[in-house]
């Protein structure tokens, strides 16, 4: 493989990491809730897409939309019923609760659908190669890069240019102050949580090609999602985007050139970065 292909491959998997992790970053930034179950929503999204396409006759794009809606709805129900009870709890309780949730999701999917890896059949127009003029590359990876970039721009505009985004930024920076100015942080959080989980669901479906899809998905990629979020900085969309691309490309390059244990550098890098800037590359200092 030539360097450009490797770069594009890395960018494509970085985009998947971004789509899955961005919601986690914002919700953790808002409430400081350590949500280890976020990858579970990505997995559920992937399974909704598989079921919708195989059994209910959905096409790929409607299935994606369905996954977004179904998982967003499901997550907000969980949030109101269970998560909300633990906002003031200790980190330890949050960790336990969300690990428990991951186990439940994994077990339910294994029981209901089976332990085997699922394949999402891509539609004809997403397969094959596309000629970009200077070189040609897998269409699907190019689409992923385009979708990820578009999403990044959309989210950034939403954050920086809308009232809703301004409220989120205010609440991330100082929750009490925002509350005393009349921002309903609870509702804000519920909505963000739903959107974030919905995006994770889309990411789980879009990324199934690269990350695979089976009941152990949430635990296997947990460390990666957390690395992206903590390196990017909590509640920082642009930070998560940069971190996801960095990790995605690095992972791809290392796995290609050092297939045996090259990923160790990612952990070293994360360690050093977090020690240098505990709040993440793009977070506030000392946060």
């Amino acid at each position, binding site marked *: 493989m030539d360097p450009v292909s490797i770069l594009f491959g890395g960018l494509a998997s970085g985009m998947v990491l971004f789509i899955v992790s961005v919601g986690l970053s914002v919700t953790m930034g808002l409430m400081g809730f350590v949500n280890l179950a976020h990858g579970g929503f990505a997995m559920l999204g992937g399974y909704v897409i598989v079921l919708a396409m195989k059994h209910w006759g959905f096409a790929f794009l409607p299935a994606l939309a369905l996954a977004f809606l179904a998982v967003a709805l499901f997550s907000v129900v969980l949030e109101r019923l269970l998560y909300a009870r633990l906002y003031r709890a200790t*980190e330890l309780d949050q960790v336990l609760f969300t690990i*428990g949730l991951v186990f439940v999701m994994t077990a339910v999917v294994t029981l209901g659908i089976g332990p085997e890896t699922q394949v999402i059949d891509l539609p004809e127009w997403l397969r094959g190669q596309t000629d970009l003029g200077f070189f040609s590359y897998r269409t699907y990876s190019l689409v992923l890069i385009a979708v990820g970039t578009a999403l990044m721009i959309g989210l950034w505009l939403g954050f920086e240019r809308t009232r809703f985004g301004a409220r989120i930024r205010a609440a991330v920076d100082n929750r009490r102050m925002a509350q005393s100015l009349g921002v309903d942080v609870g509702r804000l959080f519920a909505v963000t949580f739903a959107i974030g989980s919905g995006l994770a669901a889309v990411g789980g479906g879009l990324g199934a090609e690269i990350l695979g899809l089976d009941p152990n998905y949430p635990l296997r990629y947990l460390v990666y999602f957390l690395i992206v979020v903590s390196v990017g900085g909590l509640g920082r969309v642009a930070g998560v985007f940069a971190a996801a691309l960095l990790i995605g490309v690095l992972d791809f390059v290392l796995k290609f050139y050092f297939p045996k244990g090259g990923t160790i550098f990612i952990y070293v890098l994360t360690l050093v970065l*977090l020690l240098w800037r505990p709040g993440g590359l793009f977070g506030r200092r000392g946060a």
Partner: protein
Amino acid sequence: MSSGTQLAQRHRFRWWELLPWAAGIAAFFVFPNYLSFATQVLITILFALSLDLVLGYAGIVTLGHAAFFGAGAYTVGMLAMHLGWNEPISGLLAAALVAASIGLVSGIVLLRTHGLTLLMLTLCTMTLLEQAANMGAAWTGGFDGMPGLSFSKILGLFGFDTLYFRSQYLYALVTLLLCFAVVRMLVYSSFGQSLTGVRENLLRMHAVGAPVRTRQVLVYTVSAALAGVAGALFTQANGYVNLAVLGLERSAGVMIVLILGGHGRLYGAFVGAIVYMVLEHALAKAYPTAWQLGLGLTLVAVALFARKGVIGLVDSVRRRLPGAAR
């Protein structure tokens, strides 16, 4: 009552504290065919006890405690494999030393942070060791680990018993007792009190001038050493070591054991390890998915309703009984 006499009274030995050890000795005679399993339970108790020091008493939430268990396990394995250092007791000490050094260095570096960052850093440190063990196949055996290790007789008297695990069991029991004595002494000392202070109110401990960071690093190091001993026991008792001693599953597993039993309690590790491992032994092999589902639901329920674990539940039931005076 002054805090001094209170401390002295807490420290006083109570008769029922002999019960677990009596039960441990009784188990040796009552379940001769289950000593292999019972040895694993003892090792898990020791590992959970070491986590209790940092998590339960000092309030440091870590997802990387298996790093120290693994360090101890691999130390003993590599010494035996490459240097022919088969003597078990000095092996335990070497494992404790290596794990403590890793705990000291990583503690000095990591404990400056808190919250999510600390969680991530502990997780990364552990994954780093796991990857290193995977990569350094020439020394660690890589993915396959080191099977078929053998160790010389304990004190030159008792050979390891691959079939019935009799000597392993007693060896683990004595080691656990010694380590437990250290932990008990620590948590009832003024040092242990100051750790609880750090857990309950970090800012106030800073304000009263307590050397918070030093104490956190110290307890982290001691805990790492104990976890290293647990890992070393694992390798010696089983005669093998592989990558499963490191990794998120073992870290999360021991945390679950401790929480189920009750953290910040001396005997939480005992209750948690026995309950968890007996249930796992009975259910996990036959119904792995149902086991995972049950475990998940239990964790959710514990986090929401029973934050003090089994011992906490027993306590609250006792408190509700009429006329219950302690």
